[in-house]
């Protein structure tokens, strides 16, 4: 059973308004991916994570707790939790995920940073000023808190002299590229997905040596029209791209967007999508942290899922 929708919405909204994220992270976990990369602070171009990959282990704990509470009498006290959350961050009681999970959450941002450097792109980071975009709150119709968050993000980008934000995940890309300009008439930061940047600079090609099933992100394919870029990059890296039923602009959702409110519906949708992917091949490539986590969970050990950045980086290392 799901927790009361209004209480979950209230907690997410208050967290974004009061604490800058629907699920506030310790600063160290936001910036851990930058360690050892010798990145400059700010500058004309930055790699902007929007904290999405870093959030995933925390979201997993939150969803598991929601499911436990929803199935217990304590779930009826969610209204109390909503009121208490205005004073103290109730999500902090979930505890930190184990270190290895927090380390794993850095792998994609690090892989993207490495790929961009190999492609000759110079960029900095905003470190702890790399704020969550408000993507989930926007989807849930919590527009006032999202508008305030957009202003905070814009101030950080401007304050660090940023003209171009290179984004990693589809949701942050969509928020900064397409949604923020509606909230902020003075929005003046160019936004591009790293996949677009890499595809433009892609100059090499090798013979096919493997097959991967490509799961497109709904947001990237339909809202941002990024469809050809991942195919071009995978093909150039030596992969035959297998298209599942429902791909490209017709891709099927992983279920992730409803996980915060209705985990069981999200799981059922992920299982339906896994069936389509399984029919196409055994190794799948995703480009969104929500897709990666939801589909991996639903598939168990029947399919292998990897983020496209890690697949491309591994191919690059084999080539060099």
């Amino acid at each position, binding site marked *: 059973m799901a927790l009361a*929708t209004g209480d979950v919405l*209230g907690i997410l909204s208050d967290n974004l308004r009061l604490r800058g994220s629907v699920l506030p992270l310790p600063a160290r976990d936001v910036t851990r991916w930058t360690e050892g990369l010798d990145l400059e602070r700010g500058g004309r171009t930055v790699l902007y994570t929007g904290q999405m990959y870093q959030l995933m282990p925390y979201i997993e704990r939150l969803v598991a707790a929601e499911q436990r509470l929803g199935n217990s009498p304590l779930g009826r006290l969610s209204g109390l939790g909503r009121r208490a959350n205005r004073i103290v961050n109730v999500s902090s009681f979930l505890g930190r995920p184990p270190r290895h999970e927090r380390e794993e959450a850095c792998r994609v941002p690090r892989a993207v940073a490495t790929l961009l450097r190999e492609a000759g792109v110079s960029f900095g980071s905003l470190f702890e000023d790399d704020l969550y975009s408000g993507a989930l709150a926007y989807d*849930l119709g919590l527009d006032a808190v999202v508008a305030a968050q957009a202003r905070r993000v814009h101030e950080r980008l401007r304050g660090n002299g940023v003209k171009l934000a290179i984004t990693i995940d589809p949701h942050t890309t969509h928020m900064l590229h397409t949604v923020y300009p509606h909230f902020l008439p003075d929005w003046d930061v160019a936004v591009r997905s790293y996949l677009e940047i890499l595809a433009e600079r892609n100059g090499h090609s090798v013979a096919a040596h493997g097959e991967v099933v490509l799961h497109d992100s*709904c947001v990237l394919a339909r809202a941002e029209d990024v469809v050809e870029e991942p195919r071009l990059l995978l093909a150039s890296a030596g992969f035959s791209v297998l298209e599942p039923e429902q791909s490209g602009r017709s891709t099927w959702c992983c279920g992730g967007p409803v996980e915060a409110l209705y985990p069981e519906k999200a799981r059922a949708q992920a299982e339906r999508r896994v069936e389509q992917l399984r029919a196409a091949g055994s190794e799948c490539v995703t480009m969104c942290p929500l897709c990666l986590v939801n589909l991996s969970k639903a598939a168990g050990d029947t399919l292998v899922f990897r983020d496209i950045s890690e697949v491309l980086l591994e191919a690059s290392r084999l080539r060099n």
Partner: protein
Amino acid sequence: MTALVSPLFAERVREAGAFDAEACMNCGVCTATCPLGLDVLPRRVFRYVMLGLEDRVHDESETVFSCLLCRLCEESCPAGVHIAENVRTLRHHLNRSEHGLVV
């Protein structure tokens, strides 16, 4: 079955954001393509808004929040209705009117 009609309901929904369902001709492509198999959303709920059937919209609140906002329906909509944005606007309205949120 009786239903209360609120003539100004659609206008109140529009205070929450853009809502452009007038072009919908009820062809059913959205329903046929929905990965969740939602049959009430978007067509019927949009019609409830335009007819002022506020109670019916509130009855379908869980369905409105269950939509994935994946836009597959929008991709195929022959009338070019901005379905995902309409659903977001409905959520915004329900957040205020049903969940007591200042949004």
